């Protein structure tokens, strides 16, 4: 097969996406696929999803096929001992048959789980992305972005590329190589109120009537992880703030059936405090299917929620979002996608007053046009004391000239940490590695956020990164030496004792350098990305001969070395821009007929 542009002249390209994750992952995948469909309209996309999470995929009219995997039915029968494992396997095989026989050109596994890696190996396709199984069923990453997901996204490493952007870039870059350039330049928006084709008969006519006469805020409740999420009292306090101070808004409360008791408590608390507002609050918890829920969220002016699925749905529909993301929620990877959404986060529980302050600031943007800072707004409301406990971010979509994708603009500088700076740089390094986008050094670093304490930390990091730079450079040299030695061998299996000893000694050196990279990463956790990436990349090398394995290994260390060099460049740049700047005095201006000082 001619690898470069191999499918350029083929009509009817077929691409299957495997997404066995929950509904939030399916919606995120659909957003990425929509972007690809706009640029490559001749590609036929199909999806494999779990039956219980298939609603979103079935409501999209540009998918050729949606294969629903009845996981619950198959597994429950085995767990309940109604069927044996062998019988379960037979059921799976039967289900697989129509999926397998389609002659797929691309198979994209966006689930990134152990289970899905087996499925993606069972389905034949010319080109695969994501996790697969090969060679005695070991887990393999098919491509660079999958390695990045394995090493960075699915670990403790903080990086700032949104998952939707990773999936989109992964697919589009692969298409560009195999299918050629896209038909248009990709500036069209992906999100839309009509993203899903809803069953109009299923949409509640009562809601439709209510919606058309008023402005609504949807509060989607999810009561998991109680210590971080709000209590029913706190939700009702927040709703009370909105209703008392904003007579133009009404509230609709949504959530799963299992949230019914909790939401009833919220509702009762609210009506007890504000009985006059009873006709401005509608509770539909446990009463919405996917169609009605989508219709509601799509028609509301705002969604307020901590639930990721609700946030993804509102993103896709273009509804503005106030995302409550307490604790260690990775909002920068799975948070709102689009322009002017707001994220409120905190290491403690988010204060109701703070959340209200952020929402009121965001909803009055049309009035202040960004000329009022969030500090001033908190001060006006009498909540200045909450600033130190509340972190606020606003989403922005970068233009294509600036690299595209979403980024989270921090509005409160006190919370800016070294990990945020490094996360930004790691994201830029990954883009440099895997989509050829080189951001200008220091992009999106705000000079005002750089404190003397941060500079101290950066200087320490520069010292350890210099050691890492030298170690990775040495690893490149040692691996290159192995290329030379192994290249002279007539066979990998037959060699002289001297050659064998030489190869063993070089191998031992590489193992020592690897161990040193690991120790550096433990001592300076911000450098862990390089240790993890090199481990994952080396595990996924495809080379069969020793000399090609050595060459590929050298390339891995070269890639890490270049990444460390970029990191150091950004750290040095940050120190540079933090230095005081001399303010130039304006020269005297003489205006004709007058003398002005």
């Amino acid at each position, binding site marked *: 097969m001619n690898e470069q542009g191999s499918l350029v002249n083929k009509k009817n390209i077929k691409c299957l996406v495997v997404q066995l994750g929950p509904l939030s992952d399916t919606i995120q995948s659909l957003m990425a696929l929509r972007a690809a469909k706009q640029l490559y309209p001749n590609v036929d996309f199909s999806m494999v999803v779990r039956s219980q999470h298939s609603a979103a995929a079935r409501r999209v009219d540009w998918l050729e096929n949606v294969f629903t995997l009845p996981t619950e039915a198959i597994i429950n029968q085995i*767990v309940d001992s109604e069927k044996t494992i062998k019988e379960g396997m037979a059921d799976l095989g039967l289900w697989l048959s129509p999926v397998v026989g389609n002659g797929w050109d691309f198979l994209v596994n966006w689930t990134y789980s152990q289970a899905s890696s087996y499925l993606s190996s069972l389905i034949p396709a010319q080109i*695969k992305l994501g996790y697969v199984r090969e060679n005695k069923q*070991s887990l393999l990453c098919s491509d660079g972005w999958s390695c990045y997901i*394995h090493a960075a996204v699915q670990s403790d490493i903080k990086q700032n590329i949104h998952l939707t952007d990773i999936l989109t870039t992964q697919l589009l870059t*692969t298409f560009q190589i195999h299918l050629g350039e896209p038909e248009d330049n990709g500036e069209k928006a992906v999100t839309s109120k009509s993203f899903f084709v809803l069953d109009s008969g299923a949409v509640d006519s009562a809601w439709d009537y209510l919606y058309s006469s008023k402005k609504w805020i949807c509060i989607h409740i999810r009561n998991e992880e109680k210590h971080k999420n709000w209590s029913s009292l706190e939700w009702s306090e927040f709703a009370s703030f909105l209703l008392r101070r904003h007579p133009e808004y009404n509230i609709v409360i949504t959530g799963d059936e299992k949230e019914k008791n909790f939401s009833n408590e919220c509702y009762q608390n609210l009506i007890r405090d504000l009985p006059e507002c009873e006709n401005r609050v509608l509770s539909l918890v446990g009463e919405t299917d996917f169609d009605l829920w989508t219709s509601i969220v799509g028609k509301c002016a705002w969604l307020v929620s901590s639930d990721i699925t609700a946030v993804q749905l509102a993103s896709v529909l273009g509804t503005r979002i106030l995302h409550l993301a307490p604790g260690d929620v990775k909002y920068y990877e799975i948070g709102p996608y689009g322009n002017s959404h707001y994220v409120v986060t905190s290491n403690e529980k988010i204060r109701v007053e703070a959340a209200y302050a952020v929402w009121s600031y965001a909803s009055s943007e049309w009035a202040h046009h960004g000329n009022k800072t969030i500090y001033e707004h908190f001060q006006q409301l009498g909540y200045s004391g909450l600033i130190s406990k509340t972190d606020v971010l606003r989403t922005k979509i970068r233009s294509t000239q600036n690299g595209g994708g979403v980024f989270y603009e921090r509005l409160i500088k006190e919370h800016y940490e070294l990990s945020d700076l490094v996360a930004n740089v790691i994201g830029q390094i990954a883009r440099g590695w*895997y989509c050829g986008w080189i951001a200008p050094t220091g992009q999106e670093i705000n000079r005002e956020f750089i404190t003397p304490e941060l500079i101290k930390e950066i200087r320490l990091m520069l010292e350890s990164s210099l050691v890492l730079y030298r170690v990775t450079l040495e690893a490149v040299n040692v691996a290159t030496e192995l290329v030379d030695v192994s290249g002279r061998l007539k066979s990998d299996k037959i060699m002289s004792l001297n050659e064998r000893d030489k190869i063993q000694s070089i191998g031992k050196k590489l193992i020592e350098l690897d161990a040193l990279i690991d120790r550096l990463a433990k001592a300076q956790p911000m450098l862990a990305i390089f240790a993890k990436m090199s481990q994952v990349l080396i595990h996924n090398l495809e080379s069969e001969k020793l000399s090609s394995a050595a060459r590929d290994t050298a390339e891995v260390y070269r890639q890490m070395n270049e990444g460390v060099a970029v990191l150091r460049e950004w750290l040095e740049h940050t120190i540079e821009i933090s230095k005081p700047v001399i303010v130039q005095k304006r020269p005297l201006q003489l205006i004709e007929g007058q003398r002005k000082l």
Partner: protein
Amino acid sequence: MIVDTKWLKGRIVKDPEVNTKDIEGLIEGFLDNLISEKTLGKVKINSRVDKTIKPRSK
């Protein structure tokens, strides 16, 4: 700065057809892991995956 375009192309599968003697093992592995996900809880795209990279033991 792109290091190696092979990482951008995706894994090009030279012989797309799955070897019949591998099929049973792969289906068993698939089912095994689906059952583990159910008993251990949902596995989301952004959750941790077992980082120990080793062949599946038989």
